[in-house]
């Protein structure tokens, strides 16, 4: 499919992806500021530095395809087409938010856009994604379903049970693993006997591919191929996207006590945004103005959302049963 797209169209797609990555980056920056000023409740798990993963991966999905993501998954929600404004309203706990303020940051869900749910439980949504793939298979397998999760998540029993069933039943799905080298503060080498996750997946009969997760084009390409395999009935693929969060695990973690400055720096140099900008030969000035635009959009949305009404306390029990 990629091959049939004209070069110019490809460039314009990449430009859009650059904008999207800038939007995600700005989104996280503004939320951090909001959190620091005490205007945001709860934990904030950011994915700064990992933006090529959601943007590249979601580019390979069709609107009707489904996915589950993690507490760190707002980027995927946005890239999958969930209304950015509703996400911000949700994160601010507003009645007009995506989940009417009930779910919050860790529980974004929007079936219309194929987002089956973010999750607060490590691995907790992997079965959900596979269930949608099973349903798709019953219906002919045209919809693809994806589970997005981190490297540390492969050690959770639920994940592995699902890997096995997906491999066994050749479900039309993708396991998209963001290997950012750490689970909280623990490096993969201290949590997994076999750190080559693609080898690990052989146990489940799932073919794997490792990809540079900071290269949006590489991510998209690998994802396209996996999606094609799934849609053609060849079953699941495990994509291991090598990436890095240049920030801490969550807002109160500077991320520096368990990672060397050198390591962080070396990944900063692989920043997906500057890399794509240089591929596209976007000048620093133009990049800065794109960034400004993104920041403006986020700020404006935050301002709008802050003024929205809170949920009504008397509606506390709304929505629990049909």
């Amino acid at each position, binding site marked *: 499919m990629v091959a049939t797209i004209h070069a110019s169209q490809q460039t314009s797609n990449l430009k859009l992806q650059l904008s999207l990555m800038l939007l995600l980056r700005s989104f996280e920056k503004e939320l951090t500021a909001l959190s620091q000023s005490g205007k945001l409740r709860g934990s904030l798990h950011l994915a700064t530095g990992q933006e090529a993963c959601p943007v590249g991966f979601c580019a390979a999905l069709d609107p009707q395809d*489904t996915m*589950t993501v993690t507490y760190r998954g707002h980027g995927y929600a946005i890239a999958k087409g969930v209304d950015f404004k509703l996400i911000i309203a949700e994160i601010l706990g507003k009645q007009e*938010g*995506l*989940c*009417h*303020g*009930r*779910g919050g940051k860790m*529980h974004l*869900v*929007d*079936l219309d856009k194929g987002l*089956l*749910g973010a*999750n*607060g*439980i490590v691995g*907790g*949504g*992997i*079965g*959900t*994604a*596979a*269930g*949608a*793939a*099973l*349903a*798709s*298979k*019953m219906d002919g397998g045209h*919809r693809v*379903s994806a589970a997005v999760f981190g490297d540390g998540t492969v050690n959770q*029993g*639920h994940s592995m*049970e*699902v890997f*096995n*069933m997906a491999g*066994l039943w050749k479900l039309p799905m993708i396991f998209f693993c963001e290997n950012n080298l750490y689970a909280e503060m623990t490096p993969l080498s201290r949590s997994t006997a076999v750190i080559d996750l693609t080898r690990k997946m052989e146990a489940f009969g799932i073919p794997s591919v490792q990809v540079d997760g900071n290269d949006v084009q590489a991510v998209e390409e690998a994802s396209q191929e996996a999606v094609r395999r799934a849609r053609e009935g060849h079953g699941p693929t495990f994509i291991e996207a090598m990436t890095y969060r240049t920030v801490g695990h969550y807002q109160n973690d500077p991320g520096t006590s368990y990672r060397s400055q050198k390591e962080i720096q070396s990944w900063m140099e692989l920043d997906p945004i500057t890399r794509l900008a240089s591929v596209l030969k976007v000048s620093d000035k133009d990049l800065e103005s794109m960034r400004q635009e993104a920041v403006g959009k986020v700020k404006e949305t935050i301002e709008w959302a802050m003024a929205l009404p809170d949920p009504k306390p008397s509606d506390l029990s*709304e*929505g*629990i*049963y*049909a």
Partner: protein
Amino acid sequence: MIAETASKTLSFPQAIAATLSQEMARDPDVFVMGEDVAHFGGMFRCTEGLLEQFGESRVIDTPISESGFIGMALGAALVGKRPVVELMFVDFSLVAADQILNQIAKTRYMSGGRVGVPLVIRTQGGGYKGAAAQHSQMLEALYVHIPGLRVVCPSDPRTAQGLLASAVRCPDPVLFIEHKQLYGTSGEVPERELLLDLGKAEVVKQGTDVTLISYSYTLTLALQAAENLQKEGKSVEVIDLRSLNPLDFDTLAESIRKTHRVVIAHEAHGRCGVGADLACQIQERLFDDLDGPVLRVCGADVPVPFAKVLEDEALPSAEKIEQTLRKVLGV
């Protein structure tokens, strides 16, 4: 109760299988999955014949991965299917507790009511069979404590049929707990489709002196106890709770306002059990209607022991229920 014209006799497992077959024929989105449910027809024969009728894509044998396949049921439900999962013993629900309690039960509310989770987890629990501590539990209280699930316990083939059909059609997730002692029983079920209201309790025996609330297999014992006392002219009103969440408090209250005395009988442990919950709510809301304390007959607060003499001591019996009724009635 409306008279149901034509009826037939089915064993409890047959009633379940017939209902599943009926619902699968009615709605192509309904499918069944679980361990040995397809080729073998279910460890307790509750899915017998379904594979032949509906094929492998709708009757699915799973690996021993309860957390995985229950999670998959959630995903399938979110995209429009109506999964009915068989979980062989409710004791095993604990390997899938995160999926049931943190995922399935919470999904609708966490979405602000925008997302429905129409699925059924059919499972089986209870003692009296010498199956010991890990195969004899009644765990409904755990699933009532966490909001978001409907929890239903049928008490005979007819209620199994009517409640299961309603559960399959319910837009909310339903934990449907059958009792292993009921699998050996048979009863009349209507020839025609039967739908029983999921949120309703039923007065199964009218009475005036005391209200006896029970559910699942314990209801059988409760009715025996009530009949024994009837011989002495004591009139026990027996209520089959059926739905543990939501609770049909109105039906309970109406009875209690009449009898002023209450006994609750169930098999699960007492501490933080459904009986404790009911007793608490009754005294909170009907304190002045009560002539005395609400008493309970529960399973003892020990893991279900293996030896018969101990298991008998640990679990409710008609005799124990009768004794407690006598205490409440002062006879």
